[in-house]
């Protein structure tokens, strides 16, 4: 019973949070300077023409009215039409999601395993020279700006060595289909994924390492040691398993940012993902599109948090329902 209550409360919380985030975003965007009608009308437009554009898109109605109609639409699943692309916002976003996901999901998974493996290898002997060295190197890697790393990789591998393409998702000239298309995209995705993965490895390394060290200092470990078990079997049978939950948690939380996390890398490598869509939407004051992207990213982050909370209550019996 208690658990069901918790679930209900948590879900209500989720919806409320998303709702408020939406309203705040609407206000920030719509109260901003910059007139989408004037931008759409272009240079050499007369005032009369701009007014006509404004009327056409309903921009001359007062803000509260626009907010209400927007919220009603969202509840019906209609995210509106983009001013600049003249397509439904949901279609535009749906097109870009796989692109961004390809980069962020793949890099997160790679970073997860690399970070975990590295941590397992080095932190068994906590605070040894190797462990500390790797730890510090990871911290340094974490300090590299993603866009700069991407740029340097382009410079080295794309330009100087000419091994990888420097931008884009596909080579337009020979757009194959099926297997060739997949291979082409994969080829173009190597540098961006390497960039994103490199920056994320330190995160997973750190959380895995900290948990391992924490677990290693627990009482049960010294008990087993005294009972004569070898350090490696203690590690494999107990410490490792207990250390998996936090990194998985972090991974799940990161999934929430899976749609927004790659914006800078998308810009550097010219991939048509969510980040770039948002940037162009901001510059042309495409309100429905901006709102749509925020809504989707807020929902994913909230959902990820929600699932992590639920997961924790299921898996870790020590956590109480508050």
């Amino acid at each position: 019973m208690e658990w069901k209550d918790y679930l209900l409360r948590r879900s209500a919380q989720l919806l409320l949070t998303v709702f408020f985030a939406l309203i705040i975003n609407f206000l920030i965007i719509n109260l901003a300077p910059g007139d989408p009608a004037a931008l759409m009308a272009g240079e050499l437009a007369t005032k009369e023409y701009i007014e006509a554009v404004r009327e056409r898109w309903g921009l001359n109605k007062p803000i509260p009215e626009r907010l209400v109609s927007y919220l009603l639409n969202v509840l019906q699943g209609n995210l509106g039409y983009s001013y600049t692309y003249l397509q439904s916002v949901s279609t535009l976003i749906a097109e870009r999601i796989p692109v961004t996901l390809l980069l962020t999901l793949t890099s997160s998974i790679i970073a997860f395993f690399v970070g975990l493996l590295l941590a397992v290898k080095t932190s068994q002997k906590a605070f040894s020279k190797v462990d500390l060295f790797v730890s510090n190197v990871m911290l340094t890697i974490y300090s590299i700006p993603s866009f700069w790393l991407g740029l340097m990789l382009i410079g080295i591998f794309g330009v100087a060595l000419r091994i990888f393409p420097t931008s884009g998702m596909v080579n337009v000239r020979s757009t194959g289909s099926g297997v060739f298309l997949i291979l082409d995209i994969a080829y173009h995705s190597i540098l961006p994924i390497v960039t994103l993965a490199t920056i994320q490895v330190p995160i997973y390394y750190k959380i895995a390492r900290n948990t391992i060290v924490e677990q290693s200092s627990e009482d049960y470990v010294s008990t087993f040691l005294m009972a004569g078990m070898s350090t490696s079997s203690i590690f494999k049978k107990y410490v490792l398993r207990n250390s998996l939950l936090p990194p998985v948690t972090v991974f799940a939380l990161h999934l929430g940012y899976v749609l927004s996390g790659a914006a800078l890398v998308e810009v550097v490598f010219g991939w048509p993902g969510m980040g770039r869509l948002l940037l162009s939407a901001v510059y042309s004051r495409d309100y429905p599109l901006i709102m749509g992207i925020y809504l989707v990213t807020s929902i994913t982050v909230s959902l990820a948090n929600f699932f992590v909370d639920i997961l924790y209550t299921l898996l870790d019996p020590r956590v109480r329902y508050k």
Partner: protein
Amino acid sequence: MRTSIVGAVIALLLTISLTSPLVVSQGLTPKLGGTLVVIQVGDPKSFNPDAQVDDMGFPIFQNLFNKLVTLDIDYNIIPDLAYKWDVSSDGLTYTFYLYKNATWHDGVPVTAWDVKWTFETINKSKGIAYSWIKASNIKSIDVIDNYTVKFILKQPFAAFLSFLGWYGTFVMPKHMYSNYSDWLDPKNPALQKPVGSGPFKFVEWVKGDHVTLEANPNYFKGQPYLDKLVFKIIPDANTALSSFLAGEGDVLAVRPPFSEIPKLNSTSGVIVRSRATPSQWYIGFNLLRYPFNDRTLRLAIAYAINRSYVIEKAMSGYGFPARGGYTSAIKWAFNSNAALPNYNVTLANKLLDDAGYKLGPDGIRQTPNGTKLSIKYTYFTTGPETEAIGVVLKEQLKKIGIEVTLEGLEIGAWEQKVVKNRDFDIALCDGFQGPDPDNMRSRFALGAYLNFANYSNVEYYDLLQNASVTTDFSTRQKLYWKAQEIFVHDLAYIPLVDLVAFYIWKTEFHGLPWESAGKVNYNSYALTWWEKGKSIEPEYIVFLKNNALAIVIVLVIIIGVVVAYKVTKKKWSGKTTS
């Protein structure tokens, strides 16, 4: 005997190898086939070419659709859908005669009804061309017969034809749009899969990546040489450049950073050409704000700016210093006698000293009523030049005791602050000033939305208004020249740079729009062909043609050898040993 045969063979080989290149090997005859990839910076918004400003869609529309008349690379008016037109002597009636064999890509013929529908809809739904073709000035559009259409204006409008050939005036298929009350209705498939009448037809659009077109075999002016035309979309100039250099494109329609131009020039297989283009960078003063309403201050600032240095530093030297009150690229309208002040720092300082702008102890002047001369330069952040120009101006104005702070806003915010709210000191702006000097009226004159300086000289306005309705060419010219004299005297705006446009492409492609003046519009690839395509005639004929000279010489040698052989044989047979 043997030696002479050997000699003849050697001579033959030499001749072939030496003379073949003499006859131009690849020939100036177009070949068929190939794909041209044009790299550009963004997606089109939709495929309705007339409803909204769509600079990314425009080059694509220029290959998908036709206008009544169009502009070539020199901004001259050339026929497009109309092969001939008449203008009545009172300037009120324009009659267009359309090609009879033009069809839409779905086979339906293009008729005068499409023209009528297009322009009436531009008027009704306020298409982008509404303002500059003065759609409200069109009294009626009459269809005389299926291929003849008449426009009757209320008042003469001298620039009407120029603007008809420019932007947002593509003839659209009535049969695709007439079932929808709103020509931007997203349910209309024509917005995503356009039906046009142009040399290329639509294949696919992968958003954010590319738009593919293919040759229209039934194009009324003849099938294009290319098989496919692909517009590849790359988000920013740097990535676009690296893509082009990596061989992923054939035409670079994105201007790369200026410093890369020499590198492109010296890359083998790449050609770079530049042309003056009727666009300028100019700064405007907020004339409603003290002290910018003081002409002496503006004049001093004009003297303090070294336009060549600005171009050298901020644009790597690619551009021409603005010389007068209009772009020099539209030659007939440019008045070279109405000159901007030349660079003269001493004179600038003297003017300010004499006018009571005292120099303070920190090197910054004060206005006569005591405020520090610290001004804000507002620009939009569409590219690095805008800020770079500001950095140079900052340094130059420092030399006459004016402190400048930079304020960069993205274009929407800039538009709101400067144009709408007129809340600025000095602002940098650019813009296309063609195709007709009537453009000045929409930018600088009283009442124009873009006249952010609040320039209100009535004489200037009247001159431009008159020139807009006068149909006599030399009268118009004189009016525009006088207007420029006033413009450079008042200095509400100071033009800085006459822009240069770059054309960058691979040498293996010929017949590009900028090489085809007088024939196609300035983005059209209808006449473009690829060196490595298939020849129009069968290969052996081409081979014969290409190596005609060599073949002739070879034949001559062979005949010569045979004759020589026969002759010497006779001689020899008549002799014994010698």
